[in-house]
């Protein structure tokens, strides 16, 4: 369910990115909405890729990963959106942590905030949502059984010849 949703998101955002790119060929260059479309498509395609890798097809909800995923998407699209929407810098404009407002949003928001959330979420959910000891054991046992079966089949073919 969530896996399928991630696939749909991935394809839809790729289409949006393609439309944003295609708009650059319009007479007069890319219109203002193209950057918004690309920002939306890029934030979404990265989230969709993460969801595709993180969520097993049997899952019906992202569970404990819902918050970090939503947070990342909001920070990335919100950061780009604010940078696009806020007025340009002025010489005496306010500084946030030493940077002009929009630069701070990009650097500290898009560039740093996801780093505080995603790796931690990955580590905290690793044992139950990514690769448990049982998962590993199951893969190794089944792979070993499949290899043995393939060897038996090959031997049988040899014997028949």
């Amino acid at each position: 369910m969530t896996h399928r949703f991630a696939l749909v998101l991935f394809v839809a955002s790729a289409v949006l990115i393609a439309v944003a790119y295609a708009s650059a060929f319009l007479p007069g260059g890319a219109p203002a909405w193209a950057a918004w479309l690309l920002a939306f498509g890029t934030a979404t395609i990265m989230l969709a890729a993460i969801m595709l890798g993180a969520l097993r097809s049997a899952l019906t909800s992202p569970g404990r990963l819902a918050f970090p995923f939503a947070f990342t998407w909001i920070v990335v699209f919100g950061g780009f959106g604010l940078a696009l929407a806020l007025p340009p810098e002025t010489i005496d404009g306010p500084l946030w942590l030493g940077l002009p407002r929009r630069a701070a949003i990009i650097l500290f928001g898009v560039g740093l905030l996801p780093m505080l959330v995603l790796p931690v979420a990955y580590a905290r959910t690793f044992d139950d949502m990514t690769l448990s000891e049982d998962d590993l054991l199951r893969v190794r046992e089944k792979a070993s059984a499949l290899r043995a079966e393939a060897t038996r089949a090959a031997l049988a073919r040899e014997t028949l010849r």
Partner: protein
Amino acid sequence: MIALLQAAPLPPLTQPTIVAVAVVYFIIVASIGAWAARRTHTAGDFFVAGQGIGLFALAIAAMSATLSGFAFIGGPGLIYSIGLGAIFLVLPASITNSMGAWVLAKRMRLLGEVRGLYTLPDAIGARYRSRLAQGLSGTAILIAVIGYMATNILALGLVINAIFGTGLGWGIWLGMGITLAYSVSGGILAGIYTDVFQGSLMALASVLVFVFALDVGGGMANISQTLLAADLDFLGPWGKLTPLAAISFFFVFGIGSLGQPHVVHKFYMLRDPRRLKWYPLVMTAALIVSLLLYFGVGVAVKTLVANGSLAALGNADDATPTFLLHFTPVFLAALVFSGVAAAIMSTVNSFMNIGAAALTHDLPVALNRRVKNELRWGRISTVVISVAAALLAQVSGTLVAFLGIFGWGLFGSTLVPALAIGLNWEGATRQGAIASIATGLVLTLLFETLAYFGAYSFPTGLTVSGLALVSSILMFFGVSWLTRADAAGSIDPDVRLIMEV
């Protein structure tokens, strides 16, 4: 697209301390190579370090291979030229390592163990049961690797020439010779442990230089005020790029990271797959620390030029050498110049190994042949590829920058859909994979070549790598959907099992 590597001469750095530190550095690298050579006995040791690498070594080596000399020389120069827009090349780093871990790390590592795979095209071949897909992806990797290596070897030659005054030609062959010596003898094992040493050096140097950069500029607030007074656009969110171009870089360097073989290939090497738990944390922290110099030096030098403390640079790539030689202690400058050589060599080593694997393993498999002694032929292939890349670096002039430009884009557009999406979607078909790899290959080569010869260029804000990446993704989904009847039965049970875990 912006050239990603150093291609113009650096100012001379021939000072006793810098030369001495560089010599010590090369001796340490050679010693690690000699140590690794004694532990390399099989093709598995040579190409995937016998699946015996610990997590810290994996993460630091992946970081080291990712950065290349661009992070220390070209990157700060790019910030100096186009302001904050240049940060969009590295901005996705806060996401890409976690994304790579979720999308690829576990599955690649398990595939490597269950099937004994050791190349990315191996994984594509196993996923789709297709020698053609494996051969096509191997071809794309080989083309991009030689181009990438040529640009990196040229950059290494420039650094060695600046430190030792050898002349560019000798610099190229000396740098390539040293890297080749430890790569041929110790394979990827030598590469991994030199990367750990080199990556630690890069991170340390980056932090120290960042502190000096802030200090020289009078703190971040003072730097910002000086730059805003001189040029309002410089610290604007997109720098001197258009929003479309800046966000396009984020897309290409974000999603494209899932197809970078010098990083993804390292997942095969991890000793214990359960240690992947800490990979994004270690890798992201190391990468962000190592990128401090990228931002710090670029804005500090621009500030120094804006307040009249430094003459405007004739060549933007001189930003780091100029800053180090004038505003930091000579020992730190020496450490950074060795760090630059380190960064380039670690990238070259990774590409040597990947290119050799494509030549020795993937292309013969695609032609339904197997090389008997892959270790010996792996070593021979490493030499052949390296000599070809060094010759290309020496004789091709401006062509070398062109070769480097499309490397990242070619990896991204040919490998992301077939590998990263394909390992996470059972509906993907071999026809979809082949069509997407071919699309990435043809679009990248065609439009980069047309742009290089001035025959055709895309409108402002649109890059070849961005267009090729999104086209290959759409082609992958479109063709897979059209041929979806073939999807169900085309996955081997062990591969399906790994995809389901």
